[in-house]
């Protein structure tokens, strides 16, 4: 009986094999395949340039089109559309006839899709981004005009590929077909949501929709097509059916039900309602279980085929992709969990995760599918040796990159949780970023060799030997059961409509997820905004709005977040958590998902425009260890001459957090109850420290410095202080502390020459603790106590030793008269900088009791004034003799007690 049925099955196969097969559009496969490889090489080059700029920020600087942000946009969009998009389309051309027994809808339509995809999406997208036309939304960076063609291309793909599938009875449709249909239908729906909705729905509400697309791009376009590839190539190469089609379908449905619910996990601890966040976290954990199911099924399908995995490069690529899928999905589920998310989110860990997903899983799987197609395509050249080298180079490069970035993320997370200055995390990441550059080299070489593998080698004159006999051996036993129950070929009637049901349910579920994670949170947020937003909240000015456009165009949001999360380390470092109402006019939201530089939500009032211009023109002039790209092309030759773009960008940055400052404590009322619990547990105290002034952790809100410094002659501490100075102060005050730093020329008032005056300990401490309002001198509270103590010790060691000159009573009386007539209104009668006009002046007039200028400094200031302050030049008002009298007069005020005596 068994022999008979085997023969029957075998016979059935042979009979069916005699039938004509529908046409496969091999030309389109070739063109899309080569387009995929060309674009992945260009995209990888973008990636390597972007990575190089981390360690060498001046590399390829100075021109707008080659700045970090624009290249970064082109890197990810090129991988998404150019590489994976073309590879997926090539795969669809190969499998659609094989899974539907029908040709794709139209060859002409195929060429239309090819031209739209490559010459109206990828190429113009890259060019437009380089020219400054983009949108600052993750996985949606190409400008809206390009989005129109993307949507058109997806609609045409529905006609081209999905239409043949619709004619296949549900009971006969293989799982790869379900994934192709599901992926294309969902992406056609999700793409406009992620790209267009945040343009019309502002701030936190828009972020809820952005989160949907960030995850849907990977989860509902890349994942379904890649899994479809794996499910096709594995049985095609091994000649054995997959382990279980039922489990594969279970995996399919769980993926499509659960994946759309994940999106908000990109915004854990944000202003998005905690209910949506928790739901997304639960869905993320559930998704991990689904992926275990899918991967188990795929790996069980490879049981007994280890020899083929090692000998067949296509299968080896697929196997690696499947394993990477498991790892990256479990990693993703873990990352969504709050205790882990708070630690690693925004760090390089996430970049390692995304590379593992897009290269390890998606690219390896796509490469495996292309290799399989090429090795079976009539007339195609296929170089297995080059493919083998490609596999190992990609494996080595990717492994190095992922391990490196994961370690970098852990280091960054650790530094961010503590009180280390932000720049410490940048410095700590240098070696990891350099390793990342190195890891990119084998990756791009691997892709190049892969292309070589598709262009060289022996041509497929004939197809591979027929596997009819192999099939007879391999699947006869399985088919035996199948054909034995021949009477079941007619599926239950309701299930014959399963495909229609799937389509409707798929569409319906997309709408449901859109409602659950988009509409509902948006409505809750709107209600919250209506309840908590100050009535007086003002929109950005035209200049600030233009600056915001530039901020988005240059990718600033990809390094600087604009969301202080409701976790203690964020609040402690940056200030009050971002409230939903603060973002109610943000079109689109610029929350960001990565921090290379610090969060800027509370930038208002922290730094002067001078500092910002100097930083924008040459970031290393103000922050010597900064890796930020310089935007010199926004200036006319130097930092003192910003053009309108620079002025507007600085105006925008200056506006960040302004409304929250004006709102005061009332501005924090929106904090969700769940968030409040998290916050209070973080602080071990009741209530939510939701404004900067209420932060009590580590004394950061102290009105007086929490440190003091001993007059230490310890050489080690002096050396440490000098090191701190070099990394934090030299950009403005100069390497030699002479006030001639790179940024000094554009600062008004200029940074002080630290050799030319003597300051009291208390004054130095206050300046470091509070900064100098009205000058570019920022507060340095983020430095730890030892750093502050040692740097002040070092500055003290540089200071001038000013000897009080003795004055005759006549000179003293004359000087007192001159002082009273000219200086009292600002500096006060007793020289404490508290004259009647002082309150309105920034920076405040000098208090001569705590600052003692040297002879030279006093002479210069009295003659020339201080540009950028209220101190005028007196050389045209006072005679040189009068100035000479004033100098010892103010010098002798230093150190006087309240009663005028010296201690």
């Amino acid at each position, binding site marked *: 009986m068994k022999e008979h049925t085997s023969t029957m099955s075998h016979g059935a196969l042979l009979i069916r094999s005699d039938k004509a097969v529908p046409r496969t559009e091999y030309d389109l496969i070739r063109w899309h395949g080569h387009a995929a490889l060309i674009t992945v090489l260009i995209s990888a080059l973008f990636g390597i340039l972007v990575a190089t700029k981390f360690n060498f920020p001046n590399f390829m600087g100075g021109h707008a089109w080659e700045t970090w942000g624009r290249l970064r946009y082109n890197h990810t969009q090129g991988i998404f559309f150019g590489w994976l998009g073309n590879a997926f389309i090539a795969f669809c051309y190969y499998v659609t006839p094989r899974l539907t027994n029908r040709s794709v809808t139209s060859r002409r339509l195929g060429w239309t899709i090819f031209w739209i995809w490559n010459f109206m999406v990828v190429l113009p997208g890259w060019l437009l981004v380089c020219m400054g036309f983009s949108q600052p939304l993750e996985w949606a960076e190409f400008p809206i005009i390009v989005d129109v063609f993307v949507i058109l291309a997806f609609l045409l793909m529905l006609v081209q590929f999905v239409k043949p599938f619709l004619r296949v009875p549900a009971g006969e449709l293989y799982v790869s077909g379900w994934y192709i249909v599901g992926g294309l239908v969902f992406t056609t729906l999700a793409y406009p949501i992620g790209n267009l909705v945040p343009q019309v729905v502002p701030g936190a509400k828009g972020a809820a929709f952005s989160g949907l697309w960030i995850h849907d791009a990977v989860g509902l376009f890349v994942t379904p097509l890649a899994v479809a590839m794996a499910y096709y190539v594995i049985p095609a190469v091994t000649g054995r059916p997959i382990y279980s089609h039922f489990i594969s379908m279970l995996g399919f449905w769980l993926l499509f039900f659960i994946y759309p619910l994940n999106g908000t996990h990109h915004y854990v601890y944000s202003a998005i309602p905690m209910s949506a966040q928790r739901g997304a976290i639960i869905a993320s954990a559930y998704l991990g279980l689904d992926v275990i199911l899918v991967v188990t099924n795929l790996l069980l399908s490879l049981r007994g085929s280890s020899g083929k995995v090692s000998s067949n490069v296509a299968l080896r690529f697929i196997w690696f992709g499947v394993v990477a899928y498991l790892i990256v999905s479990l990693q993703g589920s873990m990352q969504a969990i709050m205790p882990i998310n708070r630690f690693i989110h925004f760090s390089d860990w996430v970049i390692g995760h995304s590379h593992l997903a897009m290269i390890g899983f998606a690219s390896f799987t796509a490469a495996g599918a292309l290799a399989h197609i090429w090795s079976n395509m009539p007339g195609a050249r296929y170089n297995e040796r080059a493919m083998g080298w490609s596999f190992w180079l990609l494996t080595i490069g990717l492994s190095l990159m992922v391990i490196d970035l994961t370690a970098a993320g852990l280091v960054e997370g650790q530094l961010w949780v503590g009180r280390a200055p932000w720049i410490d995390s940048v410095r700590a990441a240098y070696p990891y970023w350099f390793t990342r550059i190195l890891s990119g080299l084998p990756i791009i070489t691997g892709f190049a060799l892969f292309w070589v593998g598709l262009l060289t080698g022996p041509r497929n*004159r004939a197809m591979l030997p027929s596997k*009819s006999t192999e099939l007879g051996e391999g699947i006869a036993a399985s088919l035996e059961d199948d054909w034995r129950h021949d009477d079941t070929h007619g599926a239950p009637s309701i299930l014959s409509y399963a495909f229609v049901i799937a389509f409707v349910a798929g569409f319906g579920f997309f709408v449901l997820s859109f409602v659950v994670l988009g509409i509902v949170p948006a409505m809750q947020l709107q209600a919250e905004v209506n309840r908590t937003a100050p009535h007086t909240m003002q929109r950005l000015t035209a200049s600030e709005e233009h600056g915001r456009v530039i901020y988005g165009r240059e990718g600033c949001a990809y390094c600087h977040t604009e969301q202080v999360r409701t976790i203690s380390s964020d609040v402690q470092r940056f200030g009050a958590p971002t409230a939903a109402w603060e973002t109610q006019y943000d079109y689109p939201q610029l929350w960001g998902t990565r921090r290379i530089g610090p969060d800027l939500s509370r930038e208002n009032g922290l730094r002067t425009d001078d500092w910002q211009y100097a930083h924008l023109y040459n970031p290393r002039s103000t922050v010597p260890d900064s890796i930020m790209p310089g935007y010199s092309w926004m200036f006319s030759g130097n930092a003192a001459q910003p053009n309108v773009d620079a002025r507007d960008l600085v105006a925008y940055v200056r506006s960040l957090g302004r409304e929250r400052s004006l709102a005061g404590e009332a501005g924090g009322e929106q904090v969700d109850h769940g968030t409040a619990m998290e916050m209070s547990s973080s602080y071990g105290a009741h209530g939510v420290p939701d404004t900067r002034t209420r932060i009590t952790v580590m004394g950061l809100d102290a009105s007086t410095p929490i440190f003091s410094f001993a007059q230490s002659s310890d050489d080690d501490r002096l050396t440490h202080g000098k090191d701190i100075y070099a990394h934090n102060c030299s950009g403005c005050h100069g390497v030699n502390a002479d006030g001639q730093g790179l940024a000094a020329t554009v600062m008004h008032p200029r940074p002080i020459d630290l050799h030319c005056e003597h300051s009291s300990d208390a004054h130095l401490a206050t300046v470091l603790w509070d900064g100098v309002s009205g000058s570019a001198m920022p507060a340095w509270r983020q430095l730890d106590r030892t750093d502050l103590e040692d740097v002040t010790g070092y500055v003290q060691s540089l200071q001038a030793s000013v000897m009080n000159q003795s004055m005759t009573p006549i000179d003293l009386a004359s000087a007192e008269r001159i002082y009273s007539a000219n200086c009292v209104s600002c500096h006060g009668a007793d020289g404490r900088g508290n004259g009647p006009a002082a309150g309105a002046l920034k920076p405040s007039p000098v208090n001569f009791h705590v600052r003692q200028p040297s002879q030279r400094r006093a002479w210069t200031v009295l003659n020339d004034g201080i540009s950028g302050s209220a101190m005028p030049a007196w050389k045209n008002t006072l005679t040189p003799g009068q100035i000479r009298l004033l100098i010892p007069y103010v010098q002798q005020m230093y150190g006087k007690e309240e009663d005028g005596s010296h201690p």
Partner: protein
Amino acid sequence: MINIIVAIVTLIAAGFLLLWILRLSFRTWVERPKYAMLESDQRFRDAEKRKSERPNSA
């Protein structure tokens, strides 16, 4: 709401799993596409092979 969706999806999945375990006809029906896929793939290979073996074929 997401919790409810996840719970419902779990119940549906469990229901289908039971059906798969208990109903042979369902199991046979749901597993059939994996054989058809192989058959189809082979059919295409054979057709391409025949095409390439024709005298005027490249």
